[in-house]
């Protein structure tokens, strides 16, 4: 510390501090461009963002983007990180040498509350007055020089989204005479607060001292604002008010929400299919090429069926992840995401969550992976954890192929409405699981304690496409890096278990039966027999732990279904072949009851390595994915057991 505050030396590291919605991330992106590194703070689930900014003279300056916060008195892990880093209490992050404090000019009083707390730390500080355009539209005028004089730090007007003021900020960051602020606010506070409370209760439960401190600080801020900021016409209707009159309207609000969500789901289900098909074909083509070049053998199979198939299975998620994060980015940047939370809070509160959980939960009906990555818009850590825990219950698109083939077996005809009814039932069953367990986890994790919910509805802004795309790309890269390695490993393991030991001149089905996977299937047969399954279904279920849709492909190998170019024909052959499959005693294998039992198992079971890998990344620990895996799979087992045994007992087959 002592060296870093010495005047005459340029600072090497700045922390970026500000309220949520202050434009902090926009500024960070504008300053660092693509020179960013995203990781996690060890031991917590808070994302750590660092980047390299270029100063006035082309020198590199390290920038830490601290989580958005309302106060230095933390109420969430995000805010704890902010406090600890600024105090230099974290071993993994050296105390920054300077602070860039960003304040929303159109909302100065609230933002200056945190800013003055930060100034009290005594670090060299630059204050950025952001969104001056919005403030000017609201006829708010401010005197930066006066503000700078009163606070004792440079104050730079800025429109971060339009990159206005960046040059001035760079110059300030390169200055060698940056000093800590005047601590005027702190002095005022200590002066006004007669007896020091620290002896009795520095952070006491009564909190009365703290409450007074908050009031006093706001008084000081108000004085500061009155002297330097001119709000001549405080009562005029803002653009945000006019938009909200529609967006939050009793009737139009929900209708607009439905329209936007329809567009989102159309994009995730339909538009994503196009690049997903390309990826699928691309990797298929690649595997074909390798097959034509390399001599047959284990190495070739490892490359084509293990590595290429494994990487393909990871990359295939990218379109959905990118589309979802594109939408979330736009909704977050415009301010609409908070409106969705406002509209849906009542419904989500019924299961103990808040409105912020709505978009992630809904997205998990497409795919739990992007949905769980999207839970970082949920500020409350317990809400976030509960959402992550229950999101995989939503019937994602990977379950569809399994449901479709089982329903086709169950109802051979073309009775569309019966099939639809069953499909709907499966979705409802998953949704019921999601609701019930959200409610249960809410009881367990929160011990009935209630935290007040106060959420800001930020002013509407025009989204910065660059920032949205960069966020999308960051998520995509994180997914590839974190989930990719795990999934690739598991794909190779599963490939190996189906390939070894190698049987000479065996048909694919025979090979599979005598492979490790086949033996495992037989080994678990006693355990799955009560569910109505035999060892061959066991192989399918085991393989499904990589990804659910693998079940269908595995069944095709097991029951000698030839794959053709025509998908419909292949599906029909699969259905016919499975329908004639017999148990060892000659009884049909896929009876209606067995099909239902399988579907119920797939509704609840956690059979998705990608989800587990991403839960690990988002909760920053293996504890939660392991817990989720064990508990969901146990639940699936018990549910399928109940279906099969109950059904048998009632005389169904």
């Amino acid at each position, binding site marked *: 510390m002592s060296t870093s505050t010495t005047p005459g030396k340029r600072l090497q590291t700045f922390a970026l501090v500000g309220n949520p919605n202050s434009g902090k991330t926009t500024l960070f992106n504008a300053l660092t461009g693509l020179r960013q590194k995203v990781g996690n703070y060890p031991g917590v689930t808070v994302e750590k963002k660092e980047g390299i900014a270029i100063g006035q003279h082309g020198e590199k300056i390290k920038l830490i983007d601290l989580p958005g916060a309302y106060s230095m008195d933390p109420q969430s892990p995000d805010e704890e990180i902010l406090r600890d880093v600024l105090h230099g209490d974290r071993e993994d992050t050296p105390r920054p040498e300077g602070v860039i404090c960003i304040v929303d000019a159109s909302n100065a009083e*609230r933002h200056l509350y945190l800013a003055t707390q930060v100034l009290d730390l005594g670090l060299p500080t630059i204050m950025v007055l952001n969104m001056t355009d919005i403030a000017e539209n609201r006829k708010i005028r401010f005197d930066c020089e006066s503000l700078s004089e009163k606070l004792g730090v440079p104050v730079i007007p800025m429109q971060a989204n339009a990159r206005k003021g960046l040059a001035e900020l760079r110059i300030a960051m390169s200055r060698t005479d940056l000093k800590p602020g005047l601590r005027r606010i702190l002095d005022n506070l200590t002066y006004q607060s007669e007896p020091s409370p620290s002896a009795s209760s520095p952070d006491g*439960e009564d909190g009365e001292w*703290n409450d007074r401190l908050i009031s006093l600080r706001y008084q000081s801020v108000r004085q500061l604002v009155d002297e330097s900021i001119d709000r001549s016409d405080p009562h005029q209707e*803002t653009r945000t008010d006019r938009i909200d009159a529609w967006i939050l309207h009793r009737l139009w*609000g929900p209708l607009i929400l439905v329209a936007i969500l329809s567009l989102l789901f159309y994009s995730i289900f339909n538009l994503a299919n196009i690049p997903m098909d390309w990826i699928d074909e691309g990797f298929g083509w690649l595997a074909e090429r390798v097959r034509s070049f390399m001599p047959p053998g284990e190495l070739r199979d490892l490359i084509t069926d293990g590595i290429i198939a494994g990487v393909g299975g990871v990359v295939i998620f990218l379109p959905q992840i990118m589309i979802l994060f594109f939408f979330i980015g736009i909704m977050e940047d415009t301010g609409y995401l908070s409106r969705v939370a406002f509209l849906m809070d009542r419904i989500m509160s019924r299961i103990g969550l808040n409105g912020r959980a709505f978009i992630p939960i809904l997205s998990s009906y497409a795919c739990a992976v992007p949905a769980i990555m999207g839970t970082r818009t949920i500020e409350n850590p317990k809400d976030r954890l509960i959402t992550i825990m229950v999101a995989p219950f939503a019937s994602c698109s990977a379950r569809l192929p399994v449901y479709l083939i089982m329903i086709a077996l169950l109802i051979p005809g073309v009775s569309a409405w019966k099939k639809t009814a069953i499909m709907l039932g499966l979705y409802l069953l998953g949704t019921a699981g999601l609701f019930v367990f959200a409610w249960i986890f809410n009881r367990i994790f929160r011990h009935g304690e209630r935290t007040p919910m106060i959420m800001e509805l930020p002013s509407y802004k025009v989204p910065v496409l660059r920032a949205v795309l960069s966020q999308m790309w960051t998520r995509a890269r994180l997914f590839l890096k974190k989930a990719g390695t795990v999934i690739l490993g598991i794909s190779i393991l599963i490939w190996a278990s189906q390939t070894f030991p190698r049987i000479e001149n065996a048909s694919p089905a025979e090979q599979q039966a005598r492979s490790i996977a086949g033996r495992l299937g037989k080994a678990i047969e006693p355990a799955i027999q009560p569910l109505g399954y035999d060892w061959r279904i066991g192989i399918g279920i085991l393989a499904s732990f990589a990804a659910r849709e693998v079940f269908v492909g595995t069944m095709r190998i097991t029951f000698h279904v030839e794959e053709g170019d025509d998908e419909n024909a292949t599906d029909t052959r699969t259905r016919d072949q499975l329908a004639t499959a017999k148990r060892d005693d000659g009884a049909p294998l896929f009876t209606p009851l067995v099909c239902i039992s399988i579907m119920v198992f797939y509704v609840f079971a956690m059979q998705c390595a990608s989800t587990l890998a991403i839960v690990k990344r988002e909760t920053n620990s293996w504890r939660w994915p392991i817990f989720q895996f064990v508990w969901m799979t146990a639940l699936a087992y018990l549910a399928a057991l109940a279906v099969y045994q109950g059904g048998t007992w009632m005389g169904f087959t």
Partner: protein
Amino acid sequence: MENSQLLSELTPGDTAIILDFLSTGKALRRFREMGLMPGSLFKLIRRAPLGDPLEISVLGSLLSVREEDAVHIMVKRVEPSASPSTSQDH
């Protein structure tokens, strides 16, 4: 107190001043930190289409507050024209 009522009892469009928090302790500290404290002037903008939460305007920002928290906040309705400098451009 005369004229005092709960925040949850206000009608959208009402401007009011906070008199007191009925529950003590750390729970409502965040409300204070966001500018909602005894003496603060605010306006109830609207209720969500399903009746809850409530949207209020204070210090130039819009906040969403749940009914279950609003019942702990004692307020007094004031005429909008009488707003002192704490009132904001919502």
